[in-house]
């Protein structure tokens, strides 16, 4: 009866009753800007409340859970541990990153596998912040699982991974805080949710080290004008500085709890 059917037959045999066409772009962005609220009734330049907690996974060397609205992410850090046998000798440490999605992360089941590029993006965003010289010949593994995708997934994964690395005691120059901005017509929306991302004209994501004022990763896609771009970058940098403070206070809290 409740036998598990083979995946090849079920892939096409079932469909989700959610109607994918219902997400239409609000008409407001075609005209000038009027008072319009975002789906979660935030201001255009207001981020979702950020929540971090370290020590989510006991069997890992370090871990963190992050929740931004409906975006929920767990990152575990393992190591530094022995590199794979096939690896060449290296006198600096290696960083290995992997991002995966749960099958129920997206509104329609099993669409999370579209984000194959996130693993290498995460690697590149963190690489510059980690002092790889401190763990020669070994590997640090950073594994992320997106429990629920609610928009701005990659920036949340990057910020959460950097908190997990700090929890594991991996030496870094600074925490990496990451924020993205969506461009819709003339408007800039910071920390977009999934719905806003689906009808954006362009997006910009910055990962930076707030106290050093250095950018580790900057990705721009879509249509941007120069003044818009400058404004968006400034918005992101300001928001990352604030996010960095939240991340730092989470780590401080965890450290003071431990001492007690």
């Amino acid at each position, binding site marked *: 009866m409740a036998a598990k059917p083979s995946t090849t037959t*079920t892939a096409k045999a079932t*469909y989700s*009753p959610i109607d994918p066409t219902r997400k239409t772009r609000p008409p407001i962005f075609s005209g000038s800007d009027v008072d319009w609220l975002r789906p979660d009734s935030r201001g255009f330049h207001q981020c979702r409340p950020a929540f971090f907690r370290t020590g989510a996974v*006991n069997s890992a060397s370090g871990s963190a859970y992050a929740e931004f609205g409906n975006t929920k992410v*767990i990152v575990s850090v393992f190591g530094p541990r022995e590199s794979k046998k096939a690896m060449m000798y290296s006198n600096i440490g290696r960083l290995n990153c992997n991002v995966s999605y*749960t*099958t*129920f992360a997206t509104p329609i089941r099993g669409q999370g596998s579209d984000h194959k590029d996130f693993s290498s993006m995460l690697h590149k965003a963190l690489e510059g912040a980690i002092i790889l010289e401190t763990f020669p010949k070994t590997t640090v593994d950073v594994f992320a*699982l997106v429990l629920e995708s609610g928009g701005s997934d990659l920036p949340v994964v990057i910020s959460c991974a950097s908190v997990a690395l700090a929890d594991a005691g991996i030496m870094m120059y600074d925490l990496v805080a990451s924020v993205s901005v969506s461009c819709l017509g003339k408007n800039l929306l910071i920390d977009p949710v999934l719905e806003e991302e689906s009808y954006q004209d362009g997006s910009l994501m910055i990962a930076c080290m707030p106290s050093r004022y250095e950018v580790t990763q900057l990705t721009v896609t879509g249509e941007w004008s120069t003044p818009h771009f400058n404004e968006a970058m400034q918005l992101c940098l300001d928001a990352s500085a604030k996010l960095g403070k939240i991340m730092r206070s989470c780590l401080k809290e965890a450290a003071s709890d431990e001492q007690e």
Partner: protein
Amino acid sequence: MGLPNASEDLSSEMEVDAFRRLFPLRYFERHLAESIRPDARSLSRARNTTISMGAVASADGSALAKIGSTTMLAAIKMEVMTPSLESPDEGCVSIDFHMPPICSPLVRPGRPAEAAPVVAKQLSDTISSSGMINLKELSLVGGKAAWMVYLDIYCLDADGALFDAALLSAVAAFSNLQIPTVSLDDGKIVMLPEEQKEENSEKEPVNKEKRKLTLGGIPFSLTCILHKNYILADPTSEEESIMETLVTVVLDSSNQLVSLYKPGGAVLAYTSAVQDCIALTRQRVKELHQILEEAISGMEID
């Protein structure tokens, strides 16, 4: 002149942590002789267990179960399928168990954990044979459409007794499940957005109200380790790695035996040992039943 003999003399002068790593079995046996375990539990006591319902907003039903630090997140997504010819008025349940690389240092990306398919098979066998779900309730339009229930369980932290935690989270997710409101439109089943519910009267409603499944006998389980004459309930991953003979007993809420697994191992169990395991499970079922009831009633108050 084997190593174990050497440990006898060393143990007095060695640090406890070093002794635990070098002679794990001896370390455990010393505890067992005093009827206590390294985490201060008695042999027959299970770890603290919690359930929180509705952990995943994008799912139709979900639950997070924790036994000690073993953590399982189960979520259910409902899709529509055409029922098979043999059972035109029945839906289907598909159960998957995942061990992502975050859960344990032993799992690496691209190299799936050995334990995952074993637990997945045990889970779908247990849930289908317990008769907890009446597949007829999952029918939408006889012969044309029925619900396909995708239950995905993710292990977020692996610290022993994976099957027990996975089954508990699965059962909790099923009791949290709300079948969505749908209607028939042009031969396809569609979900109505909240605001359109009254206007679109030309669409034929199939499932008018959100409803819950009626669950039959709910299965609960307890895994025990057999080692010499000792029976250790609810092992941690450290205990599982040292003493390898496991017995998993599944009972339903009226204490009927659903299934019993003893996948080999060095210890050959006497019937008395198996009976002791069942007795322990009987006690544990009471505990788990209460924890589940509390989690469900906690949801209703909100």
